[in-house]
């Protein structure tokens, strides 16, 4: 993952894998990223990506049993970096899991679009997983990229 600039701020969250904490997680990350002066759309993109990763940890990683989800977020240069980690069952075939519409839980009516959404809304996505050990989803998004262009044009 591309890392340019100094790390200027960092935060970590540990929380129980209750589905009600999905909203808590995305709102907290959204609040953290405001220092990058993001657009409304950039905040929405990050909230969606966080929600997808945390939901995956809760229903796939921990299979709805109660454990801790760990989020680390930091700001480096103009980018927001995120790591969402669980110590759950892990993913046997990450490549397969990342295919659009692939789901191991069709009975739960999962759309199979979680990773597709994360990929679409963030600039970079990496998934590290080991069966029996857990999964870490790493994401990066550059904030404020479109805005400079727009300002230049308006001048």
């Amino acid at each position: 993952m591309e890392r340019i600039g100094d790390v200027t701020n960092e935060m970590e969250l540990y929380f129980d894998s209750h589905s009600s904490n999905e909203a808590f997680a995305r709102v907290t990350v959204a609040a953290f990223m405001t220092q990058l002066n993001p657009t409304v759309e950039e905040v929405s993109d990050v909230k969606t990506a966080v929600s997808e990763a945390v939901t995956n940890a809760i229903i796939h990683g921990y299979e709805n049993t109660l454990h801790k989800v760990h989020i680390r977020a930091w700001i480096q240069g103009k980018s927001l970096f995120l790591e969402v980690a669980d110590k759950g069952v892990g993913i046997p075939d990450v490549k397969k899991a990342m295919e659009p519409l692939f789901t191991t839980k069709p009975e739960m009516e999962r759309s199979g679009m979680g990773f597709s959404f994360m990929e679409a809304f963030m600039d970079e996505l990496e998934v590290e997983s080991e069966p029996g050990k857990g999964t870490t989803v790493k994401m990066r998004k550059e904030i404020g990229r479109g805005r400079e262009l727009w300002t230049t044009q308006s001048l």
Partner: protein
Amino acid sequence: MKYQVQENCLTIFLPEDVDHHNAEEIKREADRLIDREHIRYIIFDFADTGFMDSSGIGVIMGRYKKVYMMGGEVWAVHTNERMRKILTMSGVMKIMQIYEEDK
């Protein structure tokens, strides 16, 4: 969550956030009404909704599967720009129509 049944049409007034946490309740209640009231048409009303992730797409696809066999349809109303982006990206527009009212 609010639901309204008019003949064989069910309107689901979606909450502010449609995520995995809320999706479970929407599915449960909607399916109960679809079966009991013989629903064929489902309208998802996004008037209050500002956030939706792929769990919401799962809700729409699942309800579509339930009514599609009986020739039913699913519609979306009061979608903001963000919701239209999510719906378009997911490909769910192939099975659902968006009703755009005149402004």
